[in-house]
């Protein structure tokens, strides 16, 4: 299929200055509307002429979406806050160090200056068959080209695949799940707040979407409670090119220890499943266990239970196991230091 990368198709551009105006525009244009945040995912689609929305709603002029403010016992980060702002925000750095670490691992400095946290968690799958515009399941068709005997699936899922084997590409998503973040969504029926973990959906639930957002919905903010503030965090991203690439696999964890034993743990990964994966089984299994090599080894082995690698991504199984081990051990290392 020819891919044209010179002129993007025409669309009607709207730049609302309030959330209400944006919602009204989304309601007016329905499924024909496209929400534009930083544009780093959107313009790829437009340039390749695969997505051709009639109306693009650019959120860049809505100031209230770009604020980081204290709410209750935590923080609220506007969805249009850039990744660089997240990385540099003093309170975020002080209390929720996991998030800036994950945000700083996203792409390049230029992209982080433009890319937003809302866009990072809402971006589409990066499977090249899908991005090339082929009629795969995710594009509404009836086949997964990546999950075929000759498919190029080195970057694809080893867990929780359901027809489509594409993975979620976000680096901040596992960090937000670990921090027990809440996603604030404005819908035509009012405000809805969902756990970050429930914001992401797999292909079994809806094969054409990565998140629960429906046409007309808008992610406005991400609230981070103090539940894990000051905990011992670990984030690691493994990618082909360390200067600028999507994660092959990433891991985020938050741990609270007491008397040398794991008292509380949250662990999430991305790049291994079609959605960011919280490893609840591992979290539960290691509670009360000492933080040592043996526990890390046990956690790593447990994490990969049920993994079904495709023909080219078998390496993700030991990678996942080792990252989980390091997430446990890394925290131990920090404690010891």
């Amino acid at each position, binding site marked *: *299929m020819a891919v044209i990368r010179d002129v993007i198709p025409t669309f009607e551009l709207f730049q609302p200055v309030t959330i209400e105006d944006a919602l009204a525009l989304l309601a007016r244009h329905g499924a024909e509307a496209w929400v534009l945040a930083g544009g780093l995912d959107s313009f790829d689609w437009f340039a390749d002429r695969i997505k051709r929305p009639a109306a693009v709603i650019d959120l860049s002029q809505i100031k209230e979406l770009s604020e980081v403010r204290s709410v209750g016992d935590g923080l609220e980060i506007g969805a249009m806050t850039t990744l660089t702002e997240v990385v540099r925000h003093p309170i975020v750095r002080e209390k929720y160090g996991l998030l800036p670490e994950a945000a700083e691992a996203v792409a390049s400095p230029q992209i982080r200056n433009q890319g937003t946290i809302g866009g990072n968690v809402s971006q589409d799958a990066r499977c090249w068959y899908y991005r090339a515009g082929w*009629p795969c399941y995710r*594009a*509404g068709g009836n*086949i997964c080209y990546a999950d075929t*005997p000759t498919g190029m699936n080195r970057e694809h899922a080893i867990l929780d*695949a359901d*027809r489509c084997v594409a993975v979620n590409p976000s680096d901040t998503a596992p960090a937000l799940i670990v921090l027990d973040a809440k996603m604030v969504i404005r819908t035509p029926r009012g405000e809805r707040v969902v756990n970050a973990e429930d914001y992401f959906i797999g292909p079994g639930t809806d094969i054409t979407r990565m998140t629960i957002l*429906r046409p007309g919905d808008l992610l406005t903010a991400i609230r981070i409670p103090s539940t894990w503030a000051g905990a011992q965090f670990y984030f690691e991203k493994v990618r082909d090119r360390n200067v600028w690439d999507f994660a092959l696999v990433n891991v985020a964890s938050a741990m609270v220890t007491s008397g040398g034993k794991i008292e509380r743990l949250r662990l999430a990964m991305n790049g291994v499943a079609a959605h960011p994966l919280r490893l609840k089984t591992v979290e539960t299994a290691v509670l009360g266990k000492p933080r040592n090599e043996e526990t890390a080894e046990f956690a790593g082995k447990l994490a990969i239970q049920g993994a079904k690698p495709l023909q080219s991504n078998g390496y993700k199984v030991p990678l996942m196991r080792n990252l989980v081990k390091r997430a446990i051990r890394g925290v131990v290392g920090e404690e010891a230091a």
Partner: protein
Amino acid sequence: MNFIQWALNPWGERIPIHVSWDLLWASAIAGVLFLIVHAIYVGYWAKPVAESQNDSKLAAAAARVPERVARHSFGARTFHWVMAASMFVLLFTAFLPKVGVRFSWVTIHWVAGIVLTISVLYHIIHATFWLDFWSIWPDKQDVADASRRFQRALGRATPPLKKFGKYPLENKLFHLSVLFAGLAVIFTGLFMMFRVRTPFFTRNPYLFGDMTWGVMYVLHGLAGVGFVALITAHIYLAVRPEKFFLTKSMIFGWISRGKYLEHHDPERWPVDEGVPEAGQSKAPEVVI
């Protein structure tokens, strides 16, 4: 409205990929329209069926008819309800996601499909070798009577009508429709299982070419949306007061002597034995 969704495959060929999901609504509306038209027809135009049997013949037949006439054996009833349950699961898992109810449906769908397939296989073997295979197929008498009924509804005089055999014509036509739609979803569904991960087959999305797969998906979809109308009509007919005794027979296995003599022709559905209070019928039957 497009009836089929088309796409370009990686080789630039135009291939069908699905039916248009608008057909789901078209099918649902067709089902509702059927019940409205049927209710109006029965209420205002349909004429009572004239007695076609001579009294002595009827009396002779009636004398042999037991109080409870066996209609559906336990095995046949079990098949019907297993098939019904699997069909509902299939329809809900197929179409609820299309109308916005999101859940992980694929595994539930193919498991229900397997249940449906096994139950239909059982039914085919059972009906072919143990039941009166031809009793469910429309015959010349059904066609002649249908024509006469229609003419009567238009106010024209016709020769006397015969009563039904074991199954009314509506039953037979429904069975025929379900046969075609059911076999279509089963055959295509079994092949479509090669596209998903199941314990039964090694996944092979290249088993057929894109066009063949596309036709398969379209057939599966057409039969699927067709079932929405068929099931709507079936449930409506099942709860109609004058047909409710047939529905009860699908639960209890028998109809009363009175209903038998009122609606059925002993020549077309001869009954020589009844059903014990809690027993099983050996009478020939086909279940839909």
